[in-house]
C-alpha cells in the first residue's frame, strides 16, 4: 500500500443510481469508506444492499443510470470485473457458484497468479502456493479434501461460505465486500467464518459487510452502520445503530423516514 492512499477514502460512492430491466434499485447512494474501517450495510430484503455489493464488483446485468464510484482514485465503474479484483477489490458471494470439473487448487492458483502478474510479480511455485494455501485454509478450518475437489461442487452451504472467506484470506484484498456472508450459517459456522474475517482485517484494508441481521456484528464490530431502505441510505451511525435495529426492526426506521 502506498502512503498516499492511507487515510484517504478507498471508496467513494456518489449519488449512485442503478436499474435492472428498467426497475430502479439504487436511488442515489452515497458512501465513503476509508482504509482501516469496517462498514455494515443493513436493510430488509429487496432494499438494494446486495445490488450495491454486486455493482461495485462489476456484475454485468445492472445498468448504471447516474452517479460515480471512485476506488483508489480510479473510476471503478469503467473497470472490468477482473481488473477490479486485481486492484484489490473482493466480493464474497451470497450464493457462491459451483464450478463442476474445475479443481479448487487450480482455480485458486490461477487466481492468485493473476493478481500477482497484475502487480508485476512472478507466479508462485507449486510449493510456495501450497504453503500459502495451507496457511489460509487454517483461517476457516477448511479440509485439504475440499481444495482438491471441484470448486463448491457438492459443498454444504456452510462449506461454500467458508470457501469464500478462505479465498478472501488468500487474495488479501484492500477492499472486501461481503454479501450476506452470515446468511444460512448456524452459530458455530458463523463464529468460524467471523473469526476468519477478523484474521484478515487490518489497518491496511477495509470491509463492507452487507447483512440482513445484526448477529454477525457481534463478532465483527463495525465502525459505521448504514441502513439501506428502498434504494437509499436513510440512516448512518455507529455500531449501536445495529442493536437498535435488532430491537425495533426496519419498520421503525421506515416509519421515521416517511414521517
Amino acid at each position, binding site marked *: 500500500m502506498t502512503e498516499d492512499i492511507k487515510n484517504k477514502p478507498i471508496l467513494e460512492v456518489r449519488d449512485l443510481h442503478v436499474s435492472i430491466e428498467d426497475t430502479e434499485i439504487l436511488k442515489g447512494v452515497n458512501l465513503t469508506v476509508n482504509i482501516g474501517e469496517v462498514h455494515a450495510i443493513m436493510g430488509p430484503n429487496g432494499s438494494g444492499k446486495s445490488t450495491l455489493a454486486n455493482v461495485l*464488483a*462489476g*456484475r*454485468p*446485468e445492472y445498468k448504471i443510470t447516474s452517479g460515480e464510484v471512485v476506488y483508489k482514485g480510479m473510476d471503478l465503474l469503467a473497470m*472490468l*470485473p*477482473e481488473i*477490479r*479484483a*486485481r486492484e484489490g477489490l*473482493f*466480493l464474497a*458471494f451470497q450464493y*457462491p*457458484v459451483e*464450478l*463442476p*470439473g*474445475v*479443481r479448487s487448487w*487450480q*482455480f485458486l492458483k*490461477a*487466481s492468485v497468479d*493473476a*493478481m500477482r502478474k*497484475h502487480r508485476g510479480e512472478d507466479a508462485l511455485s507449486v510449493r510456495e502456493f501450497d504453503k500459502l494455501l495451507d496457511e489460509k485454509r487454517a483461517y476457516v478450518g477448511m479440509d485439504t479434501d475440499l481444495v482438491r475437489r*471441484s470448486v463448491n461442487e457438492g459443498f454444504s452451504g456452510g462449506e461454500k461460505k467458508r470457501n469464500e472467506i478462505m*479465498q478472501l484470506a488468500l*487474495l488479501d484484498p484492500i477492499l472486501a465486500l461481503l454479501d450476506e456472508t452470515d446468511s444460512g450459517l448456524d452459530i458455530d459456522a458463523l463464529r468460524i467464518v467471523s473469526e476468519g474475517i477478523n484474521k484478515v482485517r487490518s489497518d491496511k484494508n477495509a470491509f463492507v459487510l452487507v447483512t440482513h441481521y445484526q448477529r454477525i456484528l457481534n463478532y465483527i464490530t463495525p465502525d459505521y452502520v448504514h441502513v439501506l431502505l428502498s434504494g437509499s441510505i436513510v440512516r448512518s451511525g455507529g455500531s449501536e445503530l445495529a442493536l437498535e435495529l435488532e430491537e425495533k426492526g426496519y419498520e421503525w426506521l421506515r416509519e421515521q423516514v416517511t414521517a
Partner: protein
Amino acid sequence: MTQTLTRYQQYEIDYKAFSESNAQPEWVQSLRQSGWARFQELGLPTARRGNEPWKYTNIAPIAEASLKLAQMPGRITLDEVKAVAPWDDGWTNMVFVDGIYVSDLSSGASSGVAVTSLAEAIATNDELVRAKLGQAPHMEEDDGFVSLNNAFLRDGAVLHIREGKTAERPVHLLFISTATEQATVSYPRILVVGEANSKATIIESYVGLSDSVYLTNAMTEITLAPGAELEHYRLLIESENAFHVGYARVEQAADSVYKSKVFERNVGLGRFDIYTRLNGEYSSCEMKGLYYTSGSQHMDNYININHEKPHGISRLYYKGILDGRSRAVFGGTVYVQPGAIKTDSHQEDKNLVLSPNAEVDSKPALFIWADDVVCGHGATAGNIDEDTVFYIRTRGLDLEAASRLLIYGFAGEIIEAVEEKGLRNYLEQLFLESLPSYKFEF
C-alpha cells in the same frame, strides 16, 4: 481433361483393378466379392427419408466425392509422425500410411500379444484370421460403407491375445493420411481376438496431415472370450476436410469387459459407430466419449448396445463441446433382449454449446423386452452461464481464462478417465490447446 464420373464409378474402376491385381487366398477373394456384391445392392446410405441410422447425418458429400483408392503410402519420416500424432516409445506402435502398413515406422513386438499386419496375415493364410475375419456381429443390415470395407479388404492390423495373457504394453495403431491432389479413400481393417481371461489395451488413432479431402473407412472387429478384458481407445484427429466413417463391432462372452473411450477432435464429416453384443452372463461394457466440434464440422456418434444374457452391465457416458456452425449427433440405443434379466444399464450425453449457430441432436433410447432390469438414460445441452463467468472474473481471471477453465472443467473428467499416462497427457494438450477463445454474448 478430367471426365466427370457418375456416382460410384470410381469405386467400380478401383474394384476392377484391385480384384484383378491381387492374387489372394480364396477366402479373401470370397469376402471381397460378397462385399462388392452387397455394395452394389445397397449403395451408400444417402436416403434422407426412412433412414433411421443416418437420420441426422447427410453423407451426400461422401457419396458425391470421387474418391480414388489410395494405392501407395505417402512419404513421411518417423520424426514427422511423432510431431503430429500421439506417440510413446513405450507403446507397440504400428504405423499405417494411407491405409498401408509401413514397417520402417513401426516398432517392436509386444509381450503378451501377437501383432501382425493384416496384409501379412493374408499373405501367410493365417488360420485365425481366416476363421474370424468378417464374423463380427451386427445389429442391423450392414450398410454400404461396411460392404466397401469388405470389398477393398487389404491391410490393417491383427491382434491376438492368448488365453490368460496380458499385453504388457498398449498397442497403438496409427493411421496417417498424407496430402494428395486426388481425393482418396483407405479401408483400414482391424481384428482383435481376446482369448479367455486375456487383457489388452489398444489405441487407434486417425491422423490427417493436410487439408486435403479423403475418406477413412475403418472397421474394427473384436471378439472377447469369457473373462477377456479390452481397453479400446479411438482418437479422431483427421484433417479439416476429411471424411471418416469408423466402425467397431464387438462380441462379448461371459464375464468379459469392453471399455471404449473415443476422443473426437478433428474431422470434416465424421461418424463413429460402435455395436457391442453382450452375449454372455455378467459381461459388461463401459463407453466414454468426448467430442469437440468447431467451424462447420459434423460429428456423429452412433452406438448400439445389445444385452442378450442376464446380469449384463453397460455404461455409456459422452460429452460434447460445440462451437461455430458445427453439428454433433449422439444416437445411443440400448436393447435388453428377452431373458436378459438383471441388466443394469445407464447412458448419458451432456453437451456444452458455445455458439448459437451450433447444434446437437442427442437421442438416447432404450428398448426393453425383459423384466427385472435397471435402465436409465439422459441427455442435456447447456451454455456457459453468466453468473458462473462473473464469479470467476471476480477472482481476477479474464473472460478467456474463465472460458478455458469452464470448458476444460466440463471435458476434463473424460480425459482424466484415461489410465494410460502418455495418452492422457497428449489428450490434455490436444483439447486444451484447441479450446476456443469464447466470445461471450453478454
